[in-house]
């Protein structure tokens, strides 16, 4: 199907289902967001319309779309101002690992459960002692007959309280060199030996958890890519980033910017030339996202090299978001001092950006580690 036909199909489908649609939010769904009835119904509609897991082979319920085509679909949803939710890390991280490294049996068994929403995954990589230097992780996996018995402590697992499965990186060969003794295991969280505890975050919400794992069992069939091959599997999925969103992410940042303009105008704050200057600087960054997204999409379509553009993307949007969040409060002056009325630690959308943006500068490889990666892999500087 041509990209134009695909776009037309998406537009027509969105128009026909607009009433059920969840309106697009800001640049990111709140980290502690719990899907409600509306979200669930919209997800069901998208599933029926085959607008989930677009890049998967058709055999597993996808459309086998290329990066360029996924970009086109995301643009149509973003332009229409409606969410096209992903199935969380199940879709963005686990499924690419299964597709790249799984056996045919694993694909047939696991992918349909992801698409139907029966399995919801969280990522069990980080540990109290192991963050950036992931290869030193300590959680142990011991093979006993047909199972892997896992013991250890995982932490900062986003959406842990919504998940029934965790993709765990654990050490199955303690004698091998650091990167070689790890396995990538899909562990059910509802069995014995797993204690999931929410952790309260900077926002007051509970977007991530920690897990005390004491001899919990996963079937050996749930090891992806073979025993002791987990590092390679983990690295492919850490690479499976947001190329599909390279053009559509702009819309979310733009909506947030426009919302801030609206708020400041109603507060009379735009009369201040200093505020306008600072806003113009933020607006520059938002427009740059649009230009770079478009260019990356064009490079991908031309079969050119978009590696540098994709490598710098995460630092650039996350740094923008930190600066934007700070600006959003500064520009409001004393009005930024006060949260909305209500129980608990309620925050408004801009206070949320100011607080949550810090986390995205740390998660998925801190921006310092990202700089190392850019310098070494894109620019070729020595380790």
């Amino acid at each position, binding site marked *: 199907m041509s990209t134009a036909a695909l776009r037309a199909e998406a537009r027509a489908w969105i128009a026909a289902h607009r009433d059920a649609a969840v309106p697009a939010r800001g640049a990111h769904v709140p980290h502690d967001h719990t899907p409600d009835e509306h979200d669930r119904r919209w997800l069901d509609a998208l599933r029926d319309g085959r607008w989930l897991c677009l890049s998967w082979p058709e055999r597993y319920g996808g459309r086998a779309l290329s990066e360029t085509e996924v970009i086109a679909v995301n643009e149509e949803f973003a332009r229409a101002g409606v969410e096209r939710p992903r199935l969380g890390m199940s879709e963005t991280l686990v499924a690419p690992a299964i597709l790249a490294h799984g056996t045919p049996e694993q694909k047939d068994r696991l992918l349909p459960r992801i698409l139907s929403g029966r399995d919801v995954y969280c990522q069990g990589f980080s540990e109290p002692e192991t963050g950036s230097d992931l290869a030193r992780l300590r959680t142990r996996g011991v093979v006993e007959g047909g199972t892997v018995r896992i013991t250890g402590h995982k932490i900062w697992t986003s959406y842990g309280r919504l998940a029934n499965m965790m993709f765990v990186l654990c050490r199955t060969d303690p004698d091998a060199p650091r990167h070689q003794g790890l396995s990538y295991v899909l562990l059910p969280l509802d069995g014995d030996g797993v204690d999931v505890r929410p952790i309260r975050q900077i926002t007051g919400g509970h977007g991530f958890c920690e897990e005390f794992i004491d001899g919990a069992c996963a079937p050996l069939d749930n090891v992806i890519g073979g025993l002791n091959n987990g590092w390679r599997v983990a690295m492919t999925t850490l690479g499976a980033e947001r190329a599909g969103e390279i053009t559509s992410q702009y819309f979310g940042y733009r909506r947030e910017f426009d919302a801030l*303009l609206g708020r400041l*105008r109603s507060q009379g704050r*735009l*009369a201040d*030339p200093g505020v*306008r*200057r600072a*806003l*113009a*600087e933020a*607006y*520059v960054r938002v*427009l*740059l*996202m*649009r*230009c*770079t997204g*478009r*260019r990356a999409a*064009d*490079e991908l*379509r*031309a079969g*050119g090299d978009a590696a*540098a*553009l994709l490598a*710098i993307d995460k*630092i*650039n949007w996350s740094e923008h978001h930190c600066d934007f969040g700070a600006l959003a409060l500064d520009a409001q002056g004393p009005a930024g001092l006060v949260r909305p009325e209500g129980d608990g630690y309620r925050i408004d959308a801009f206070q949320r950006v100011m607080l949550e943006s810090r986390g995205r500068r740390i998660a998925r490889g801190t921006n*310092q580690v*990202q*700089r*190392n990666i*850019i*310098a*070494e892999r*894109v*620019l*070729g*500087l*020595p*380790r």
Partner: protein
Amino acid sequence: MNLAVTGERAALREALRDLLAASSPPPAVLAAMETPDGTDPDLWASLTVKLGLPGLLVPEEHGGAGLGMPELAVVQEELGRVLPCVPSFSTAVLAPLLLLETARPEAHGTYAHGTYAHGPAGERLAAIAAGETITAVALGDDPSRWGGGYGDVTASASGSLTGWASYVLDGHIADAVLVTARGPDGRTAVYEADAARAERTTLPALDLTRPMARLEFRGTPGRPVAAGAAAGLARALDLALVALGAEQVGGAQRCLDLSVEHARTREQYGRPIGSFQAVKHLCADMLRAVEPARSAVRYAAAAAAAAAEPGGADEVPELAALVKAHCPEVYFAAACEAIQIHGALGFSWEHELHLHYKRAKSGQLLFGETGRHLDALAARAGFGEDER
């Protein structure tokens, strides 16, 4: 609209890069910029003869290549890497843009790409394409949004010009000058004058690769090229800002390339300095600044080409403000960090980095400083408040 450089544009880039590598290596630039005229006439001749550089934007019917902003951006990026001492920004960029935008038939797209120009403008374009002239642009009717200071020229009914214009790029070697002036009707008009008939002073420029002059007009005869030209002038200058931005991206990329090369090979403490994180992170930050700046320039150039078609929406004013508010900052920061990474070598006259440092600063100051363009961007995006 395609922001990837492929096909003929890529070929143009390679041809220009090869020519400049052979004919304008850093020692040649350093030598040429300190000659009395600060130019390399042989290099200009070979860019003219071999690549038809001055005629790039000139429509085919006036003898040029009839190319548009995307191609110009490719060329400018290459020139920005090397900073060759040639009068291209005046003759191949400013003058053709001004002629095309102010003296063109109506009823076309917003920008003049591909259309012919009337009368004297057409003749001047033909002379440019033929490589017969160095034509400067004197902004004697000051675009006030840049805060003034570029000139003040009025024209009488007979076309005689009175006043002054400064920071006229290549004005010291130009044979012809296009002067924007207040015409007898009080509106902006464009005149062509014999540059030798103005009183010229070569200015001691901070940036020796961007020589400039001050011109005094005392009844200098001017040939009318376009009347009622304010809107055309504004369009031409917006496009010129995009061209300038492309050059700045090329310069910033050169600073990054030199830094990476030096960081790989220079050793201290028994290891390449590029293995130190402080150096790595500077390089990574340069890359993550340069690439989006390049995207902005390509987007703006593509938007200009799109708006040259009938009915195309005009995003150029906003994008030109974006480019001018951002690219000079990226270039200057890249030049600063490149000097730092090179240590004392980067502080020496023999090394090319000071050329970029100075060019980056001149690019920040020329045609409106960064803050003015941030304000322009705000106004164009609808939050300029009192400017609206």
